[in-house]
């Protein structure tokens, strides 16, 4: 099921783009970038709703009525939950709107990773699987084997650059950095030091870059190309909404002195 629904279509889309680009040196890296753009365009409405949902949830944390409910029913969790649901309903907020696009990203990331590994075929067994994965309409004879070189990287292996005798994982650093920037930009300022949502966002802006950086450090560099492209597109998409909080990138920039007014 996973094979037919995820791996085969993804691998074939990647190979189709690779073939369109002329399947020469460096084109598989470009194919991954174009593939990411296609995925981002397809999931654009979902990402927009994620941004909107996250923003609404964060703004709610600074809302006076919300804060009063927290204080008033501090010892009655059930009542808090009821009141929260009421406010969600009144204001048309879906508390899960910010989670769905993230959940959708996971099969894409895992599928893409498996597709890259299969497409690059580092061992004969991988190539045999690849030969059976390619749809009949594709130019299989022409595109196999794929050229795994992209700039200075071998897309099938973790990346590093030798600087003064040390292997520096530059892509992992860029992945961590762009993930950090993206998560910081989407984090609204808060005036409430006890804001659990803000604390959670703060944690995420540290854990996410570390986790994705770890992915990039240990797995095929093709997946790092996906992360970087996806992060940059995410930043552009968020900046285009005009709500990017660039101050958050500065130390202490995520604190706000005035509370956000109720909408």
């Amino acid at each position, binding site marked *: 099921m996973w094979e037919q629904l995820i791996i085969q279509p993804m691998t074939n889309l990647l190979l189709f783009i690779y073939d369109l680009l002329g399947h020469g040196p460096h084109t598989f890296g470009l194919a991954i970038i174009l593939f990411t753009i296609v995925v981002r365009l397809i999931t654009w409405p979902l990402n927009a709703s994620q941004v909107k949902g996250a923003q609404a949830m964060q703004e709610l944390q600074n809302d006076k009525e919300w804060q009063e409910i927290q204080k008033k029913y501090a010892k009655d969790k059930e009542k808090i939950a009821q009141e929260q649901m009421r406010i969600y309903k009144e204001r048309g907020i879906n508390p899960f709107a910010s989670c769905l696009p*993230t959940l959708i990203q996971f099969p894409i990331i895992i599928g893409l990773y498996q597709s890259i590994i299969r497409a690059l075929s580092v061992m004969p*067994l*991988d190539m045999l699987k690849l030969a059976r994965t390619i749809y009949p309409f594709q130019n299989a*004879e022409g595109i*196999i*084997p794929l050229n795994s070189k992209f700039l200075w990287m071998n897309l099938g292996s973790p990346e590093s650059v030798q600087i003064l005798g040390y292997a520096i994982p530059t892509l992992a650093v860029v992945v961590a950095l762009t993930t950090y920037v993206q998560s910081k930009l989407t984090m609204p300022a808060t005036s409430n030091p006890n804001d659990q949502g803000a604390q959670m966002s703060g944690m*995420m802006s540290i854990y996410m870059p570390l*986790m994705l950086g770890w*992915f990039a450090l240990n797995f095929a560099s093709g997946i790092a190309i996906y992360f970087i492209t996806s992060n940059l597109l995410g930043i552009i998409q968020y900046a285009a909404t005009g709500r990017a909080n660039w101050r958050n990138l500065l130390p202490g920039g995520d604190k706000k002195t005035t509370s956000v007014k109720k909408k």
Partner: protein
Amino acid sequence: MILISLLVLGAMFLSACSGGTVVNNWYGLAADAERAYVSAGSFIYAVDLQNGSEVWRYPEKADSKVLFFANPVLTTDGQLLIGSAGAKDHKFISLDPATGKEKWAKVFTGAKGAWVAAPLVMNDRIYVPNTDGFLYVLDLSGNQSADPIDIGGALWSAPVSDGTLIYLSSLDHFLHIIDPVKGVVVSEIDLGGAIPSSPAVNNVGAYVGSFASTIEFIQSNGDHSVLTQTENRVWGSPVLDGETLYYADLNGKVYSFDLASGTENWSVQPDGPVAAGLLIAGGQIYVASEADPTSELGTLVALDLDGKTVWSKEVGGKLYTTPVVSGDLILVAPHQAEVTLAAYDADGKQAWTFTPAK
């Protein structure tokens, strides 16, 4: 926290399921009169042909990042040569076939890629292709005796010689003809598809199959022609038996071709897909069928020289490794099976199986 948990789960999924940095492939196999040698991932095993017991294993302790999948090669001066794949330390080593101890003062680590192909030993030199696209030239002590020859494309198949020239297949769609004395490529022939296996060579030229679903004849001067078409891509090496060429395709069709008349003798489909090379021994053709279409288990089929099935045995797992003959035994090394090695006699009776002790 849900997202973090998902990321951790995702990381585990990538590590465990996708192959990730884990390299996997089918096993390599060779045999002399006393022992079979199987390169099966973390270890190379020497197995006693009398009873299927383990004689030695190399290395003593497994390192999950140093793996062996290439066919080992025995030399006339008593060496067992093999290179490693895996995530680190791609090394080319020489072992004592009797003890499994390393023979060279230091292992060769001069290549950038993994070792998937078996070497060719010719005129006291070892010619060993690497996935980095170079053909390395070593002396019998493991020292680099000439500059590596830049072939291009990942090299997965063993070089073959007609006694003068070396023929080397590459995934870059080219068959390369090399003059070993000058250390240069003298001809490169585009076959229109990746060539994953070695050619069969006789005194007039080479015969090789490719992903272009053809068998091509290549003369030593580089002239070439399509000998015949196949139903599907050709993965395994063709085999010569006098004036007859035998080969199989990924559909599982086995062909016999008469070189003298230039016509096909017969073609049969004994079982499932065939990725391994064929073995001709004792007047029979041994076909390692990857998986039987019904049972999905690897099957060893013996055909007579007219293409009729003599016997068929389910080995288990998947069969990708070319069978090897030693004395009266036909050896097969299945992939992802309960056994690592199985031995059959010419009548299809199983002599023994070998499963390494943990």
